[in-house]
């Protein structure tokens, strides 16, 4: 197992180098190079500031030295200072935003797991029943729904018409004056809609995926054998079929990281949630180059980690992968 993980880790090295190369090129391909973008967009681009930028990007150095420095900075996650008026370190800004985005995404993955898997299994076991048909139509509609639109509708329904749930931010204005239980309840209420929406796209995909896996497994001989030896359906489904149908789901969860991150930009902007997605959106709107590059690279790292976890998780669950 350790050897497998080691081999798998080695494979990510060329990808890391590729990510660094591509992002390095992107910075230098920006019209006029990094300095001119910085100078055009940043009101405090004084001569001294330019000087600092030249030194920071090492633009007075040969290109391979510049790349070497960029590589070094990426390794230490040092993306320089944000162009925003506060001028803080990009890495620091990202660090304080990541937990929010990750928490919401992990909660929504949990939701996907809890809802999509039973749904997929039941649809497969009762294939072509009314339940299966209705869930198939729902899933297809689910694929097509623009998440930001659904967010608007839910905001209108639960926030404006019914007034049940808050529609912006992570906590209420009076959060600090609440008791401990009140604080927890307040946070939970703010999380309901974002978590639901972050998971929505995955919900449709995962239940569909689970259904087709399950259908595939049910056709296998060993399921027929289990039935033939007189096991009740519940045992066949949960003990024999489900375990094998669940295996590929591990992979899908790991591979869904980039989509979840992309989705975070949308729902964090709509619900005014101070996460990495909102930070990225603000960076794009103000053309904050160091911030954009920083989040882009961090996003790629997180995707890589997701892929890695998917492979390792799969290998842990399925000995055939380790051997192969």
């Amino acid at each position, binding site marked *: 197992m350790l050897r497998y993980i080691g081999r798998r880790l080695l494979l990510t090295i060329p990808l890391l180098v590729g990510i660094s190369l591509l992002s390095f090129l992107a910075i230098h391909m920006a019209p006029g190079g990094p300095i001119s973008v910085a100078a055009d967009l940043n009101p405090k681009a004084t001569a001294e500031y330019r000087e600092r930028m030249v030194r920071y990007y090492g633009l007075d150095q040969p290109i391979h030295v510049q790349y070497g420095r960029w590589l070094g900075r990426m390794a230490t996650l040092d993306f320089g200072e944000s162009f925003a008026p506060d001028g803080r370190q990009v890495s620091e800004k990202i660090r304080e935003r990541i937990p929010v985005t990750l928490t919401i995404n992990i909660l929504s993955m949990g939701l996907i797991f809890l809802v999509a898997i039973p749904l997929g299994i039941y649809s497969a076991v009762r294939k072509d029943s009314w339940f299966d048909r209705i869930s198939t139509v729902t899933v297809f509609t689910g694929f*097509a729904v*623009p998440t930001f*639109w659904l967010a608007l509708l839910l905001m209108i329904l639960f926030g404006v018409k019914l007034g049940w749930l808050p529609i912006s931010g992570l906590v209420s204005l009076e959060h600090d004056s609440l008791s401990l239980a009140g604080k927890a309840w307040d946070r939970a209420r703010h999380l309901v809609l974002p978590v639901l929406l972050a998971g929505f796209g995955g919900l449709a995909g995962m239940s569909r995926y689970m259904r087709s896996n399950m259908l595939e497994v049910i056709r296998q001989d060993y399921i027929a054998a289990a039935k033939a030896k007189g096991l009740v359906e519940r045992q066949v489904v949960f003990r024999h079929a489900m375990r094998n149908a669940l295996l590929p789901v591990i992979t899908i969860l790991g591979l869904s990281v980039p989509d979840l991150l992309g989705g975070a930009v949308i729902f964090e902007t709509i619900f005014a949630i101070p996460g990495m997605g909102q930070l990225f959106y603000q960076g794009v709107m103000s053309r904050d180059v160091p911030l954009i590059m920083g989040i882009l690279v961090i996003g790629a790292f997180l995707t890589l980690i997701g892929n890695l976890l998917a492979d390792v998780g799969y290998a842990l669950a399925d000995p055939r992968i380790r051997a192969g």
Partner: protein
Amino acid sequence: MAGGGAHSMFIDFLRRLARNRLAVAGGAVVLFFFILSAVPQVFSGHDPNRIDVLKVLQPPSAGHPLGTDELGRDVLARMAYGARISLKVGFVAVGIATCIGLLVGLFSGFYGGLADAVLMRFVDIMLCFPTFFLILAVIAFLEPSIYIIMIVIGVTGWMGVSRLVRAETLSLKERDFVAAARAQGAGDARIIFRHILPNTLAPVLVAATLGVAGAILTESALSFLGIGVQPPTPSWGNILTAGKDNIEFAWWLSVYPGLAILLTVLGYNLLGEGIRDAVDPRLRGR
């Protein structure tokens, strides 16, 4: 690849497609929005850009079946003209992505070796960046316009197609008909474009149909965030932005454009799935 054979294969394909009720429904929706975008004036007599300060945010009525927006413009007219923009973006973006994907996939699969290794590692690296992040990052440095949006969505969306085409090419180039063409003295270009390319088109068509749905969703999300199609040019996404700003008093601004996006995307998805089943029954149910 005789002419008569291809012709009857196509008829066969259409017949199979017509038997699939969901695909036909999807096709009908797609067709409806095509007509809407071709002749929007038939669906609404109003000028989509005519501002009327006396009719701001009016709920749906006989004069304005889908109401008016924050500047008193007719929502139905804006949606009809917006359909044109959304479809244009969807098709051009997917066209760009498909062309790049086809060329990379054919080249990579046919020649193999170092070129293949380099191109496929490049695809791996591109796939490491969350696509939506990549699109936003590029747009940050450019003035957003409908053309930039098309190009950016296209240039960040070809990786899947290239993997698909490469895999097909790898198996196709070992087939007898390629060896036969080679024996007749056909050059690489002729083999790639006349013999291999046509055989990869079926899965590419499926991917492209589903891709249009994805591109329309992406465009509407970008426009909704204010970095896609810029007002006053109408797009389904930017009408929804107005819906968000007036969420407490004008539900119709939020409901209808989203419904249009939903139906269009659903239509392309159903049609795409239908085409997949009709071209290759073996793939059914995947």
